[in-house]
């Protein structure tokens, strides 16, 4: 076998590889930008030791809040071994911003079967914005090991149809877990 032929065949393959990798990146970048898909990247710090005493994540502020422009913000805390609150109502088909942080160790947040997903790292607020299109209860397990009680750390995200979406005068909405 001629060495030049070998080199030529390899160069042809290198070209194929370069084209395949480029195509893949183009698809990823194009879909990311077109669908505005952004993983939580807000780099917002918070003191895990004091977040329950003052500021955005005190108990009264936790839960679902409808904003003046019709969008919805959900604030919650992931702590050993529960999410607070444990039931999160959100309206169907509207942009929802989820803001979550931890006072103790690392936790994980996922709404099963959707792309709502983030790490919860103490010292940082994770924020993600998405829409939920399937009405009903969606399970929300903690997806990062946080200690021996980790497996019991589940909450529920309840997607409420528009006609049943009736927040109170302050724009607050709550829900109860059916035992």
């Amino acid at each position, binding site marked *: 076998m001629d060495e030049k032929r070998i080199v030529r065949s390899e160069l042809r393959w290198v070209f194929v590889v370069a084209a395949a990798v480029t195509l893949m990146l183009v698809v990823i970048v194009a879909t990311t930008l077109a669908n505005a898909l952004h993983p939580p990247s807000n780099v917002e710090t918070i003191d895990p030791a004091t977040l329950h005493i003052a500021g955005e994540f005190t108990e009264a502020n936790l839960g679902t809040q409808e904003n003046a422009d019709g969008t919805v913000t959900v604030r919650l805390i992931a702590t050993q071994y529960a999410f607070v609150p444990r039931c999160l109502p959100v309206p169907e088909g509207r942009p929802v911003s989820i803001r979550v942080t931890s006072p103790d160790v690392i936790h994980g947040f996922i709404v099963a079967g959707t792309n*709502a997903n*983030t790490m919860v790292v103490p010292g940082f607020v994770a924020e993600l914005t998405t829409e939920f299109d399937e009405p009903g209860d969606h399970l929300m397990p903690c997806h990062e090991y946080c200690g021996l009680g980790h*497996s019991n750390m589940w909450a529920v995200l309840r997607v409420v149809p528009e006609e049943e979406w009736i927040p109170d005068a302050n724009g607050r909405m709550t829900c109860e877990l059916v035992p």
Partner: protein
Amino acid sequence: MNSSPNRLVAAHIWVAFIAFAVAAVMGAWQMLVRSPIDAPLETAETYFVSVTGHGALMAYVLPTLFVMGFGYYVAMTALKQPLPGLRWAWAGFYIAAIGIVMAVVTVLSGQATVLYTFYPPLTGSVFFYLGVLLVVVGSWIWVAVMITAMMKWKRANPGAAVPLAMFATVANAILWLWTTAGVGAELLFQVLPASLGWTDSIDAGLARTLFSWTLHAIVYFWLMPAYIAFYTILPKVAGGRLYSDTMGRVSFILFLLYSLPVGMHHLFMDPEHGSGFKFLQMMLTALVTVPTLLTIFTIGASLEIAARLRGGKGLFGWVRALPWDRPMVLAAGFSFIMLGFGGFGGLINMSYAMNSMIHNTSWVTAHFHLIFGGSVVIMYFAIAYHIWPKLTGREARSLTPIRVQLWLWFVGIVITSFPWHILGLFGQPRRVSSFDFANPEIAYWGPWTTVSAIGGFIMLAGAALFVWNLATLYRGAAADRTMSYAMAVHQPREVPRVLNGFGLWNTLVAVLMIVAYAWPIAQFFFLDTYPAPVQRVDVGG
């Protein structure tokens, strides 16, 4: 095993595979715990002790000790010179062995249930971290011996091309040195001071970032022996030649360059980093597919040469003419299939946006079990089977148990990992000990979890048969102890200097790491960060 250097190799490989066997039992049991079937000793504590042990043994002990043992063997047989610093190598072995015992005892006693990825601010007993560090220190001695061996050979053979097997081994040694810097810094500056009680808080974001430095490159450190076997052993066993020595060198250099500045793709879902560096490292991650794609072509062509020499015909019909009865060829075939599926899953993980569907779900567990447990570990088996006659001086009495073992492992891992992919898409989180399958929301996860557990026990049977084979099968006819590596179609006597050493490539790695990691690490010293209080898992529960 008549001579001390051979004992050195065998000692490393035995420790690697004993750790593997213990961890395989843990793994199968864990799958039972996660399934709807009742498992003996099932509690949250035993489960997470087991996960910590399984991870530490499979990720730190098995590959590190295997890579070290195989590296020593390559250095002696490819360079055809005595190993420099044999005493040092033994010292490294004993340091690592002490570390392994220390870490395992600490984990099993429930004093370090923090998983093998540490997850500070959770903090366990200092002996766990020290044990892991000792394994790393032992491996650093290996790195020094590998570099010294190559330099010594180069001095004795001025201008000659370093044999590809050794060139690749040294590439891996250098890669490992870079790799361990991240986790080393995390342990030394953050985790050890906390576990010694010197500090009472840890910057969790910084810790995750330092760990991510290690987290992807370590996977390529595990992978390299498989690729060394593809390039330098497989073509010969198949009855042919390596298509291109140069392409091998280029691939190993690209692995060194691109497996390091990509670790932040493990942090796509982390709030402590902005989208810019996540995006940059995703682009770099795409480049790490290049050496694998090059390898598939070069090894495919090498196998085609072998098959056509054996009378193979047709555009793809030659595949049938390969000697599939030889364990190395069979294992490589399985390895390529698993690499294909695992690689596909990996493309989803590395894509900036799609990853949010499957991050930290069973999909990820499926991905790395397919790639590491499948493609890589099956090549560890094949390498051990290949060099065992040369170490023991005896052939295997029969190849049938070896073939059965490779089939068991392949079938087991497919049955284990395919359902995991599906469960991951459903949103099943990883690292959860038990699920409430009575809950209608997740009841349908149950059957898939059970199937996957069955796969786990097939793997366990494969693991047990492997250890049995190594221990009892090599009592056949006297074997030729000479290890010879595949020749290239055009075996080079000399190669350009850049393809014969790592000076330039080391500099480039440094540049890439500064570009990829300087700001992501430095930002923690500029931001108003708040460290998280240390939480001990080893005192008072």
